[in-house]
């Protein structure tokens, strides 16, 4: 089934309410909306901003592949992924995932799946900017994110 799918990689901020409305207005079959918003933490005041670098072209393509997989795995009615790039101040939005379905289970699962895959497969890298003016290093990938993504891997059926 073709469902409304919006994928945007951009510097501009997003409006969660407007993105939810875009997937729910003018229809009565949506029974569940799940959203996830990733926000830049200040790490107790030490960090002023994150700078997000991305691979233009591949970022869109990779997220489109994830969206296609989510759509094939769960009965979704709509899906939106917005990932920002550039310098994002502490407290600012980084990423938004919105999934809609008839029932909550699919919306929750698909949103979580998309976030786990975004973390480990979408070509974005974060660099830290600190309050004392230093530009820090690049954020290191965490094993816990790989573990989270791996749980969605389909296991071969037991013999």
């Amino acid at each position, binding site marked *: 089934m073709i469902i409304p799918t919006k994928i945007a990689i951009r510097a501009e901020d997003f409006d969660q309410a407007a993105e939810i409305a875009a997937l729910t207005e003018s229809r009565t079959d949506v029974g569940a909306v799940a959203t996830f918003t*990733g926000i830049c933490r200040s790490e107790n005041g030490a960090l002023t901003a994150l700078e*997000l*670098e*991305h*691979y233009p*072209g*591949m970022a869109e*393509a*990779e997220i489109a*592949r994830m969206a296609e997989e989510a759509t094939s795995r769960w009965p979704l009615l709509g899906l939106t992924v917005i*990932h920002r790039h550039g310098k994002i101040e502490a407290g600012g939005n*980084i*990423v938004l995932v919105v999934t809609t379905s008839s029932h909550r289970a699919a919306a929750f699962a698909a949103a979580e799946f998309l*976030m786990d895959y*975004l*973390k*480990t*497969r*979408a*070509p*974005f*890298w*974060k*660099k830290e900017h600190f309050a004392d003016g230093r530009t820090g*290093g*690049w*954020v*290191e*990938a965490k094993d816990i*994110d790989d573990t989270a993504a791996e749980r969605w891997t389909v296991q071969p059926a037991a013999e």
Partner: protein
Amino acid sequence: MIGKTLLKILYFAWVRERTGLAEEDIALPENVTTVGDLIIHLKTKGPGYASAFENAGTIRAALDQAHVSHDTPLGNAREVAFFPPMTGG
């Protein structure tokens, strides 16, 4: 006019900082057939490259904007990218 096909190589995050380049076009030596071969070749191009690919096992690669493993043949790819493990989301 035999002119070898040029391959576009992109670098991101600290791989870009260490090589000092966001992208470049290179003519592939004949013994370079896989992504891993290309990494070995690039390491010989200077100290920045040697530093970028010091721990080659941690470097991720993409061929024509899709993730691949290091043993993947370059084939007729037009674009190769090297970058650290991703930290988006």
